[in-house]
């Protein structure tokens, strides 16, 4: 397993750079013979989407109304698996306080955590100094079209 660490200012200006790193890291997740190109493409798409939402939350919520702090990203590139840890130095929050979006009501916000949870295998958040959001996803063939 290999480790990638990226530290950037926690502002949206650095979103594109960070997303590119995550996309490149996905490509480094070791191939397995039994995984199709479609499954890989879906894996990349899900990880990049989830990461984008996590990045937004740090830039928009963690450092809202205070000095912008750093955003630390740790990526574990494993065999058929990726883990992202996103750390910020904001006040932290309790994700359990956040209501699931009611999709029938066509919400215009509050979909970020939902996207992360749906697209990754596991998402956890540990408030502290720093706050750390961890997300993991396995690259498996069942990804295709969401068929289990």
């Amino acid at each position: 397993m290999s480790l990638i660490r990226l530290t950037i200012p926690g502002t949206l200006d650095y979103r594109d750079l960070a997303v590119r790193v995550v996309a490149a890291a996905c490509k480094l997740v070791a191939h397995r013979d039994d995984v199709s190109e479609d499954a890989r493409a879906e894996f990349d798409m899900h990880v990049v989407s989830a990461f984008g939402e996590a990045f937004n939350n740090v830039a928009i919520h963690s450092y809202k109304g205070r000095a912008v702090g750093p955003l630390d990203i740790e990526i574990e590139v494993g065999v058929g698996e990726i883990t992202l840890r996103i750390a910020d130095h904001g006040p932290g929050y309790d994700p359990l306080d956040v209501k699931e979006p009611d999709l029938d009501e066509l919400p215009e916000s509050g979909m970020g955590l939902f996207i992360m949870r749906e697209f990754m295998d596991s998402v956890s958040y540990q408030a502290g100094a720093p706050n750390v959001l961890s997300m993991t996803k396995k690259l498996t063939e069942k990804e295709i079209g969401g068929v289990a």
Partner: protein
Amino acid sequence: MNFTRTDEGDLTKLEISGSLDAISTPELRAAIDSVVGDQRKTIVVDCSALRLIDSSGVGALVSLYKRARAHGGKVNVTGLCDQPLAIFKLLRLDKILIG
């Protein structure tokens, strides 16, 4: 992200390309406000060149949909593929916004 707006009779076409995300969505919001302000009747959002979208981009398109509908306008999102299509399906917007 880049977008172009084309008006033809009752029809307004909004073509969006690139990445519609937290950093680029504010630019599109202004264009959406003016489409809504103009009370356009038929709005087609062409996303065939849209590569990536996040929840803030989705929020802007849902806002367009709701506000246009409030004065009798129709919004139709076309051309979605890859990541943007997956996001629309996940949020069950494909049935509502894709005509």
